[in-house]
């Protein structure tokens, strides 16, 4: 199976390991993630002003590219996924905006593409049972905290493929890989997002709430599918450990990295060494790398 794939900016630069792990894991599962021939940045945030059509032009161009290559678009990053999916809904449901945007970018697009997160493809195309069968490593001793963040689930009326207060897709993914799910309350709270660029202290504390509660639930590591969440959660843990006595740093992996590890793939291109909190000791301890 071949599915057109949108990597996005961060996966092409700072989060190459996320991207590599995605492509290689999906290839191992028989799915070619075929990078769009032309794509641009999605904008990294869905424009919230009603008249801000220009900010929609970027994401829609990607959708137009995708439409030329197939009827689906696979996305790994949950922020890109949020922006592309919501932009697609605008093109599908809001005639007035559709006309203007199409005029701007000289296109004739009406939201035909299905924007899919990689986890959705695992759930709906591969299936959890088949995924479980493809797993080569034994993750039974690994406790994983699923981290959804905000962009993956909200707003539910638009994103709506999982229960926004009690999501299960990451849990089912972790279970399919054979690992334990660490049940903790803050898996869908915001990590601080772009506030990091404005007020680092606030972002750190927002992330700490999540990190500490995952640790408390006995997690060995956290998985997420957003590079900014990954950064915010990962980057400041040394500072947080100094500030909050007793806090033990916890590695934050991308979902595709854990997938590739479980599938027994060679992890050299996964950039596991580029994480701030090194995940390799715990992975080695559990016999996974």
């Amino acid at each position, binding site marked *: 199976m071949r599915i057109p794939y949108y990597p*996005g*900016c*961060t996966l092409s*630069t*700072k*989060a190459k390991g996320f991207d590599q792990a995605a492509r290689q894991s999906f290839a191992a599962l028989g799915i070619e993630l075929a990078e769009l021939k032309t794509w641009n*940045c999605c*904008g*990294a*945030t869905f*424009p*919230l*002003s*009603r*008249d801000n059509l220009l*900010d929609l032009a970027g994401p829609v161009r990607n959708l137009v590219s995708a439409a030329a290559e197939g009827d689906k678009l696979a996305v790994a*990053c949950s*922020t890109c996924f949020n922006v592309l999916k919501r932009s697609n809904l605008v093109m599908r449901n809001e005639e007035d905006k559709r006309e203007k945007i199409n005029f701007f970018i000289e296109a004739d697009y009406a939201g035909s593409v299905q924007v899919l997160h990689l986890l959705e493809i695992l759930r709906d195309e591969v299936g959890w049972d088949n995924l479980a069968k493809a797993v080569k490593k034994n993750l039974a001793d690994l406790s994983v905290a699923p981290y959804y*963040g*905000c962009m993956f689930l*909200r*707003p*539910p009326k638009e994103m709506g493929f999982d229960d*926004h207060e009690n999501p299960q897709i990451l849990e089912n993914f972790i279970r399919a890989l054979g690992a334990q799910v660490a049940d903790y309350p803050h898996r869908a*709270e*915001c990590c*601080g*997002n*772009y*506030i*990091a*660029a*404005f*007020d680092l*202290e*606030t972002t750190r*504390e*927002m992330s700490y*709430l999540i990190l500490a509660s995952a640790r408390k639930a006995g997690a060995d590591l956290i998985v997420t599918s957003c*590079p*900014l969440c*990954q*950064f915010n959660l990962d*980057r400041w843990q040394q500072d947080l450990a100094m500030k909050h006595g007793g806090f033990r740093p916890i590695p934050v992996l991308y979902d595709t990295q854990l997938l590739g590890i479980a599938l027994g793939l060679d992890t050299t291109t996964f950039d596991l060494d580029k994480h701030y909190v090194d995940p390799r000791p715990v992975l080695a301890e559990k016999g996974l790398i």
Partner: protein
Amino acid sequence: MRIQLSATKVHNDFIRKVEDMSGQDLLKCYQCGECSAGCPAAFAMDILPNQVIRLLQLGEHEAVLKSKTIWLCAACQQCYTRCPKGVDLSRIMEAVRDLLMLEHGDRIVIEKLPAETLAEFPQQAFISGFRKYTA
């Protein structure tokens, strides 16, 4: 503190622009406080999310413009998701920020960001940050 209410104040142009840009009806909010209760950044805010709407309802936008709160909203949509009246507060915050920056300039300047930040932060953080902190 005393707020002097008047017809011109509660119907002022700024409020109308906020409603128009955000597409939100400010008077739909009945001040239950659920947005503030669930906001993950509330601990760092000087006024609560519900107070942002309240002050706008009264035409007191000057107090909102001075607040830190509008810059600490991460548009995570938790408030909108749970709002019993379906008010999308993140859109209101965005409209207030945009109007403020159109008049007073950008909130962050890329050249002034520390080199360490520039080197480390994922691209996404800059792009979304510039979307929120520059006009």
